[in-house]
């Protein structure tokens, strides 16, 4: 039997549907529900992964598989599914993450046994994967918007899964509101496009921007930027993200951070590069600026966090910013007529998209494993976990190195490509671009350094030194399936880092479809061992070379020890404790202490609130107790959202007088509305 991508895709979609249905049927039996739901989800993910790989590896020659869902049931509406290269790329991401996270969940969901209904969790998890996959492969507006909305609703249910906690309910409502604002913006934007095309299918919308008036085109762009930006979590529309990700079950946070926020990137890429046509300069400048601000602010706020999952959530904002920097640069190059450079920017952005999906999925799974073992998200109560959970610690370290953009892992490759795209913009002629590209590049460098600092903190405080609490003291390694899920993603991180030229080849059909250029041949130097950057003056890098160099250098210290120090006597003694006898975990560096220098440097931004109270009997110089309190509040929360909320509440109270409770008044409203509509229509 010949396996086609369309068939595998259909198997994957049906699999998720069956998994969800099984979860609902097995509500009262948690063990079978757990195995069924997450097992089926893993197999469906595998099927989708194969479909995407077949499609992308087929190159540009293969046709685009298309079919319709529910054909006999819906005589008038066509739900068409279309797997073009861009859809296939995002199908790859969702299926890969779906597979790994489902494996992880097989073990993780056992933590809910007897406490929460695992059947519901599994059913919703499958439904979320189904909606997201459908959204990525939708070939018309109807199916896209329906799947988009279903995705938002199931994600809301999953975020509110542990709804007995007030914090969770609050975050769920915030996510609900924000995701409806974004759906509203997107629907309005698509209506503007529909006005020009008169047809719902994505093929008819291709390059529709050329037929629209500039004003409407700009309006559509802004609506999409806000709509997809909320989903992606760009600053300042990100506030739902650090609230919702930590409170969700960890497998759901991994899925949300790995895939759901990427749906914003998918929508944005689809609309800007496929539908809206050649962009004016300010679109690219806006996207690049928004991306830069998101990257820098995301990592700065991440540094201030000591809740492990909130820290990772802020890093998602940072990485979305980096992705948008690549896409923004691509838009600017499209405007100036440099399709090759635009392709480079697009490749950088999309490469970072899949990289972020893998390492952030991995890190959230790692955080989930830590949470599973210690029952706390507060890093100040962790420590010493590397001795108790060595494999989890190793996988987390792989993710941390990848997200800090250190070679030879995947984060490094995509950020390097982003640098190349930005720096080559300096060579163009427009003065604005000559100014903005180096600035963004410098900001990206700052972001990378701060991210590395942040993960030194995240890894060091969580896993190293001695346990800071009884929770951490009694932690133990998690089950095999959980480690398997993390191990899969860690392996993907390494592969994507070591073989960039081979991976870029998979992107060829995508760039060919969107911009009409293929770069893999030009980027791949020395038989694919070295990654180039188009021009002779640009840099080249080989992660494979760096890795093998490291492997070669590794024996040298051992050799030196063997030659010179083998014979010397080893003396073991206690760590020097400055003369204060007995070091305790309370003397360890804390997460707050570690980030203090950065808090001081960026004081103008953070405006930290700190309070010190001394309790003493006779003189303040002999304090009995010290109480220190410090917290950082987000500037957007205070400056934008709080005034907006007050304003909206005040307006609502004004409007509420309309609800007088009098039937006659309500009838009057209906009458006036009818008259107005009649006059408007005539």
């Amino acid at each position, binding site marked *: 039997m010949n396996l086609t991508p369309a068939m595998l895709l259909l198997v994957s979609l049906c699999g998720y549907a069956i998994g969800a249905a099984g979860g609902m049927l097995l509500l009262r039996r948690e063990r079978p529900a757990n195995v069924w739901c997450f097992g089926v989800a893993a197999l469906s993910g595998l099927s989708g992964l194969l479909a995407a790989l077949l499609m992308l590896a087929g190159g540009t020659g293969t046709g685009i598989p298309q079919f319709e869902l529910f054909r006999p049931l819906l005589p008038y509406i066509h739900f068409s599914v279309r797997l073009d290269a861009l859809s296939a790329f995002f199908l790859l991401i969702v299926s890969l993450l779906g597979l790994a996270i489902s494996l992880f969940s097989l073990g993780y969901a056992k933590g809910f046994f007897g406490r929460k209904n695992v059947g519901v969790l599994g059913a919703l998890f499958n439904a979320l994967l189904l909606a997201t996959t459908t959204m990525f492969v939708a070939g018309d507006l109807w199916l896209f918007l329906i799947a988009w909305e279903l995705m938002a609703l199931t994600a809301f249910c999953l975020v509110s899964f542990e709804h007995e906690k007030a914090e969770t309910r609050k975050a769920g409502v915030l996510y609900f509101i924000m995701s409806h604002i974004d759906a509203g913006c997107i629907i309005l934007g698509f209506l503007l496009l529909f006005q020009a095309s008169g047809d719902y299918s994505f093929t008819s919308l291709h390059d529709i921007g050329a037929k629209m008036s500039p004003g409407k085109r700009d309006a559509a762009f802004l609506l999409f930027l806000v709509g997809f930006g909320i989903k992606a979590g760009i600053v300042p529309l990100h506030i739902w993200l650090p609230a919702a990700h930590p409170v969700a079950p960890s497998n759901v946070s991994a899925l949300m951070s790995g895939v759901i926020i990427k749906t914003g990137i998918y929508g944005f890429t689809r609309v800007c590069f496929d539908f809206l046509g050649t962009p004016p300069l300010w679109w690219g400048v806006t996207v690049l600026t928004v991306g830069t601000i998101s990257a820098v602010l995301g990592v700065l706020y991440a540094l201030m966090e000591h809740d492990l999952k909130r820290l990772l959530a802020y890093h998602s904002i940072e990485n979305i910013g980096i992705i948008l920097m690549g896409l923004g640069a691509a838009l600017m190059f499209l405007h100036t007529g440099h399709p090759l450079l635009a392709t480079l920017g697009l490749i950088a952005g999309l490469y970072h998209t899949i990289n972020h999906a893998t390492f952030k999925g991995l890190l959230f799974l790692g955080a989930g494993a830590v949470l599973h073992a210690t029952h706390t998200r507060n890093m100040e109560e962790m420590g010493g976990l590397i001795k108790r959970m060595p494999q989890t610690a190793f996988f987390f370290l792989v993710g941390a190195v990848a997200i800090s953009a250190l070679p030879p892992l995947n984060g490094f490759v995509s950020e390097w490509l982003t640098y190349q795209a930005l720096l080559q913009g300096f060579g163009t002629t427009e003065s604005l671009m000559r100014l903005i590209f180096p600035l963004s590049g410098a900001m990206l460098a700052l972001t990378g350094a701060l991210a590395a600092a942040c993960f030194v903190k995240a890894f060091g405080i969580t896993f190293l030194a001695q346990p800071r609490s009884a929770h951490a003291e009694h932690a133990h390694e998690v089950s095999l399936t959980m480690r398997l899920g993390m191990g899969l993603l860690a392996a993907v991180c390494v592969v994507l880092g070591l073989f960039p030229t081979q991976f870029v080849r998979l992107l060829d059909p995508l760039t060919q479809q969107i911009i009409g250029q293929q770069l893999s041949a030009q980027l791949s130097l020395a038989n694919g061992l070295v990654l180039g950057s188009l021009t002779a003056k640009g840099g080249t890098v080989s992660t494979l070379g760096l890795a093998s160099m490291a492997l070669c250098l590794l024996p040298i210290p051992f050799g030196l020890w063997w030659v010179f120090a083998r014979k010397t006597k080893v003396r073991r003694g206690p760590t020097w404790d400055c003369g204060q006898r007995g070091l305790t975990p309370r003397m360890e560096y804390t997460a707050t202490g570690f980030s203090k220098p950065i808090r001081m440097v960026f004081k103008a931004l953070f405006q930290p609130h700190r309070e010190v109270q001394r309790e003493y009997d006779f003189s303040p110089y002999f304090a009995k107790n010290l109480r220190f309190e410090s917290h950082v509040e987000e500037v957007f929360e205070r400056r934008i959202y709080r005034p907006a909320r007050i304003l909206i509440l005040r307006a609502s109270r004004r409007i509420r007088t309309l609800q007088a409770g009098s*039937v006659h008044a309500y009838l009057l409203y209906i009458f006036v509305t009818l008259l107005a509509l009649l006059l408007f229509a005539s």
Partner: protein
Amino acid sequence: MTGALNLLVALAMGLNLLALGSSRLPSLIRAAAVQGMVLGVLPLLLEHEFHGLVWVVAAATIAIKGFVIPGLLRRALRTAHIDREVEPLLGFIPSLLLGAMAAIGAVAFAGALPLRPEHAGTLLVPGAFATLVGGLLLLMGRSKAIAQVCGYLILENGIYLFGLLLIHATPLIVEAGILLDLTVGVFVIGIIVDRIQREFDTLDTRKLTSLRE
């Protein structure tokens, strides 16, 4: 044919004004009932070929709108011991003025609409608009539940007039269905009126404001 049709529709428009000007509930009910009967005759004038169903529907309309529903309402009046005064929120003179303005406006408005040639010469569209507005005015301007039911009946008559435009397109069975809905609706309202009366000792819908939220 058009002459007779216009005469009947004009009669219905006049009954609107009568209903708006009635100060006592029985006369209001009577106005609504007569209007319903007048409109019940219309399908006979519009339909070109006379088959059994048309007769059945016309007879049923006249019977239900002219006798059954008014009967139900009168029974509710009797059993719930409701005063015969209408108690307007909007005075009779303003109501009448607004109703008259609506009739004039409806004629002017219908002239601006792109109608099919066979409807252009008739009063069907202006009559429908005027009756709709008259019904809405009664709904808004009267405080007693029974009076509001009458407003609702007249509103429905306006919709029915609109429906006559499509008489060749929609099967009469749809009209029959609407009629059934209406009867059941009034029947239910009759029961609710009785219950509200027993619970709150009043049928003044103004007192229902405390039920909000």
